[in-house]
């Protein structure tokens, strides 16, 4: 930051910075952020980190136990699956799928949700009625069932999962944005901007949006955890990405056959899901406490 911008910045302790400081001082939340970051790094740098090729089968290592159990070896820390593939490497590659889908769905849904929510809250009238109806209807579907229905009809595949989840997911940011917009649009500074002759687009993007972003971001992070579980659930049911691509949900599912002989096959991918989702949940709770204290406890 240059000195000039420093000088023109609002009082050093802006709300955002104070919130950020609150968040940073929350140790548990920070630890969770680190866990999430580790997963992200794992996903991005998978080829560098993974000790083995995730799809390399070796039938001589079929159901090889984790390293610390007799018969295991450290090159295959968490053991091998039914085709002798390294579970640890597959978990690392699986993080790509989970995180990609989580991010893609949330970005897509939040984008659509913001547009629809802003339009509904700002213009009100028939726009609001139409969007509201669509939202009501989509809310009429239990989430997983809606996604399962869509996946059944569209067929499996990475892109289809993103679509199947985003079709319903946007409703959530949309409702948040609409509510916040309704509250904000009557506030003084918006009135002032309108009085000064600012156009609708300017008011929506420049005046309203920046002021409602916090709750949207908070909601989005919480939702991301949910989306990751949903993706894993779809993959578990065999409606997710196609093999041999490693996906945590399908790894758990594949391991089900071996629970009597090789507990590690489905246990470890499940632990990965739990860790990532838990970390996102804790971090987002910290975010909410810091940035949107209305909803915190």
């Amino acid at each position, binding site marked *: 930051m240059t000195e000039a911008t420093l000088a023109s910045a609002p009082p050093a302790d802006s709300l955002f910075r104070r919130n950020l400081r609150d968040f940073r001082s929350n140790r548990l939340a920070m630890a969770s952020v680190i866990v999430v970051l580790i997963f992200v790094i794992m996903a991005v740098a998978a080829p560098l980190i993974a000790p083995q090729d995730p799809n390399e089968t070796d*039938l001589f290592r079929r159901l090889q136990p984790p390293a610390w159990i007799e018969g295991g070896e450290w090159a295959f820390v968490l053991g091998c699956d039914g085709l002798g593939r390294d579970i640890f490497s597959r978990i690392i590659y699986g993080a790509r799928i989970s995180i990609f889908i989580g991010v893609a769905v949330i970005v897509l849904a939040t984008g659509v949700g913001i547009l629809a929510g802003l339009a509904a809250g700002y213009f009100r009238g028939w726009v609001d009625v139409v969007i509201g109806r669509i939202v009501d209807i989509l809310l009429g579907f239990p989430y997983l069932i809606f996604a399962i229905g869509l996946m059944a009809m569209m067929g499996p595949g990475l892109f289809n999962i993103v679509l199947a989840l985003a079709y319903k997911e946007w409703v959530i940011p949309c409702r948040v944005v609409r509510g916040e917009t309704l509250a904000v649009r009557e506030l003084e500074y918006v009135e002032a901007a309108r009085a000064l002759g600012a156009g609708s687009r300017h008011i929506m993007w420049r005046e309203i949006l920046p002021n409602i972003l916090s709750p949207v971001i908070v909601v989005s992070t919480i939702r991301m955890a949910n989306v990751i579980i949903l993706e894993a659930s779809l993959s578990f049911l*065999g409606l997710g990405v196609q*093999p*041999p691509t490693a996906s945590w949900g399908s790894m758990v599912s594949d391991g089900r*056959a071996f629970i*009597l002989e090789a507990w590690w096959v489905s246990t470890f991918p499940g632990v990965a899901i739990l860790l990532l989702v838990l970390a996102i949940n804790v971090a987002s709770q910290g975010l909410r406490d810091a940035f949107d204290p209305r909803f915190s406890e």
Partner: protein
Amino acid sequence: MNALPRLLLATALATCPGIFPAAVLAEDLIIGFTLDADTLDPANHRKRETETIIRNIYDGLLTRDANMLVVPEIAESMTQVSATEYDFKIRSGIKFHDGTMLTAEDVKFTLDRITVEGAMGGQTSPRQGLMGPVASVEVTAADTVRITLKEPWPILPAMLPNQQIVSKAYVEKVGNEGLATMENGTGPFKLVEWRKGDAVILERFDDYYGGATDIAPVGKACVDRVIFKIIPESASRVAALLAGEVQIINELPAFSMAQVAANDGTQVMTVNGTRSFFIAMNMEGEAFDDIKVRQAAAMSIDKDLIIDKILAGTASPIDGILSPDAFGASELPKAGYDLEKAKALLVEAGFPDGIDVTMDTEGAFKDTAEAVASMLTKAGIRTTVVVGEGAQLSDKWRTKGAPKSGDMYFTSWGNGSLDPFDIFTPTHRTNDRGNSAGYANPALDALLDAAAVELDVEKRRAMYREAELMINADQPYVYLWVPQDIYGVSKRVTGWQPSADSRINLHDACLN
């Protein structure tokens, strides 16, 4: 697990009234079974699991013994009158479960219902194809039924055990829909309750005529009740067997065999199956139209390794379409695992950098298909497994001559009759319904057509040998193996043997 928490938990659960273990009635034989029946209508299904359940309720004209030998069941005897005419003398004194007597009319009604177009309320039985060229069924005497064929079809007797006899009066009373959930068979067990998706509960039919006289013992069933308990998850099925909740499980995974064998009260029983596994290579495609590429594929797959490691030795490798147990099967030249030669062949075929292909398969075979794919990949045939669903893949690959897309298809073809006609013709005759490779060889077609109607057994055997040699040379498919059916069985069960046609016939099973 340490003993103390286990004890505490057990005590905690035991103290709640009625919560602790179900003492199963002594004479209940419970089968841990993969899939529920879709329907109980013997004419309206094409699923092995459904058939297994139905066969314990209904009997057929003919049946097979544990060694796959066809023997009379409801028929007392069978006479071949001419190349296209068969007479069946119906056993007397057979009662349906409702107490009415079975007549020749019932047999005719049953067979008509299967073979006549639209005979099931406008719908045609999905089992029609299993009856081949049946032209008509007539009652020629009070106790005799004649089946007339459009053309000679020597395997009619082998196919008849697939069809179960229903009561004409009953079907007319309850309708086709009624027959889907209710039964009135002549089999050793009658239906008590069908808890859909959960269990089929059967009890002994005390007026049973005794079943096929050629299969001892003749008489009513041994156990009081039989329960098919549906447990789709293989691990759950094994766990239920080990816990003593069930006495027989089907589709015991190969990797669980050791555990079941090691367990005190249980044993593993296997029987040679009749289903041949193979990989179809799309001969209309760019790469696999070249025999060198097809040979390269065949040589890059180490069948023995997969059989050893994944199937725990419970399969027989094949080099032609026929199971070693099938009629006409013979020793054939082996492609043999040879990675270097496979690579060389690929280079010779003009693919020095290898090829990228996909391999379609169903979820159930994902494991082995992926193992195969990784072997192909090592040879330069870089293979991605695409899991699809049965009917969809069937549409895609079994196009009956229409153009098809796709590179490879990991699939199988059942051959319950163990007669080559039932597997060789559909998978290899030009444009036939199971010819997923798109193989077209007029010489083979002629040979198969002739073999189908050849009545001289030895000539016929030689013809199939010749056909096997032809396809072994042309390699439209990579022929893989015929797996065994593996069952986990409680040592309390006696008198039961697994049957090669994958059906669980419980007439003779007893429980100690």
